[in-house]
């Protein structure tokens, strides 16, 4: 019989994999891997804020990531530094400010659990929240899917077809932020990017349409969540990293298939 904490972990993980699959495709297509990484770094500051104010850390993370993203987009438009440099500055400064703030708060906080995730401590109430967040994100992503794909292929074509690209882009960033805020608990800050990038990159090898890539990416995410959880219990290894190891193994197994497909 499965313990309830395992079931919670499984269910929460599947939610994360489902959102991450679709969003991750856009992160890969738009070459936003570093952006996703920086966003997850800034989430530590959000956790600090949550603890300091005594509010839910997921909400704290959501707030800080939103401010971070808005600030970043503002600076990008200023074009003083390259995107790369900006992300480097903001990602590591917010991570450091986050860690310093947490230590100043003088509360016992297990940093490891935020850095590497602690999926086994997810409560049933949190699972319910993940489920609602997943439904909302999936619905929103479904609504903007075609527009966002067209924008990703060519922004000017999208504009010429009367798509409000600013609105669609903002919705996409918000969904990404929701993903990061929920995902921090599951796989941890350092591994969020892999949850976005690796399933999508794996799915790319075997897909011939954007939707197919989104769906395969979610399925690959779910498989590695299941395998990762099982192995981490079996071998008593940290769950977050174990899930990522499973993702990498799937990536390596599927990689040769793309060669077959192109010939």
């Amino acid at each position, binding site marked *: 019989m499965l313990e309830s904490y395992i079931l919670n972990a499984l269910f929460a993980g599947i939610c994360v994999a489902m959102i991450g699959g679709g969003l991750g495709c856009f992160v890969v297509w738009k070459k936003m891997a570093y952006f996703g990484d920086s966003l997850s770094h800034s989430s530590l500051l959000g956790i600090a804020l949550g603890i300091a104010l005594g509010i839910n850390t997921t909400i704290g993370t959501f707030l800080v990531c939103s401010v971070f993203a808005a600030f970043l987009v503002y600076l990008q438009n200023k074009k003083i530094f390259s995107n790369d440099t900006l992300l480097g500055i903001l990602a590591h400064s917010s991570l450091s400010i986050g860690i310093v703030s947490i230590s100043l708060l003088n509360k016992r906080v297990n940093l490891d659990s935020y850095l590497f995730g602690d999926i086994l401590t997810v409560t049933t109430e949190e699972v319910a929240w993940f489920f609602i967040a997943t439904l909302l994100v999936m619905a929103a992503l479904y609504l903007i899917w075609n527009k966002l*794909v*067209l924008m990703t*292929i060519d922004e000017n074509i*999208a504009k*010429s*077809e009367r798509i409000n690209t600013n609105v669609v882009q903002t919705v996409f960033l918000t969904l990404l932020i929701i993903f990061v805020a929920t995902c921090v608990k599951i796989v941890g800050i350092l591994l969020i990017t892999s949850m976005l990038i690796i399933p999508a990159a794996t799915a*790319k090898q075997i897909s011939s*349409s954007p939707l197919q890539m989104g769906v395969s990416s979610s399925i690959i995410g779910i498989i590695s969540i299941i395998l990762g959880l099982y192995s981490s219990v079996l071998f008593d290894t940290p769950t977050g990293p174990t899930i990522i190891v499973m993702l990498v193994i799937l990536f390596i197994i599927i990689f040769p298939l793309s060669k077959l497909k192109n010939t």
Partner: protein
Amino acid sequence: MLIKAENISVIRGKKDILKNINLEIDNDDFITIIGPNGAGKSMLLKCLMGFFKPDKGKIVRSPELKVSYAPQDFVPEKSIPISAYDFIKLNKKVSELEIKKISIEFNIEALLNKQISHLSGGELQKVLIVRSLVENPNLLILDEPTQNLDVSGQLSFYKFLNDIFNERKLSILMVSHDLHMVMSSTKKVICLSSHICCSGEPLAITQDPEFISLFGQDFAEMMSVYKHDLDHKHEGHSHA
């Protein structure tokens, strides 16, 4: 009248990107905009399509106007897996049958199942143009459509564009440097360098002093020779 620019100016910083542009596009027009780099050609197209609001002047659009646009430098991201068919259908209200029909009409049905990242530059341009035709626009706006094509690709593209212009009742507004190739089909050339230096019939343009001062005597003469050449070819055909 489909669309009209009334005395529009675009100012960025202290620089006039566009200055007092007046332009009207009617049904069955084929207008080519030429001009040096940084002349504001792309900006003019973007103002006409409503991406930017001009700082001065206004754009008047006819209620019947249906614009379709093919951008400059279209190189789709390789990591997006999408077939030509799915790309044509993306965000368009169009049936499978219509896509089949138009693909046969423009001879791209063999490309439909290919991934767009696997298409050659010329094939990609054709797919892009066919995609822009599916909802029956009455104005096609093209920004340097042959930039990534070699000479034979350019020739076949302009032949393709000519067929579209002749078979579909639509107007074309195009930014292009290949004036020698569009001489025979374009009806009007606008020479842009922030302001409209000169405009008119292709042959007349090449003799305009403003055109000559902008592009140099050699280029202007080469253009005239081309036009001359094309005329001869044309006569040859009609005698045969």
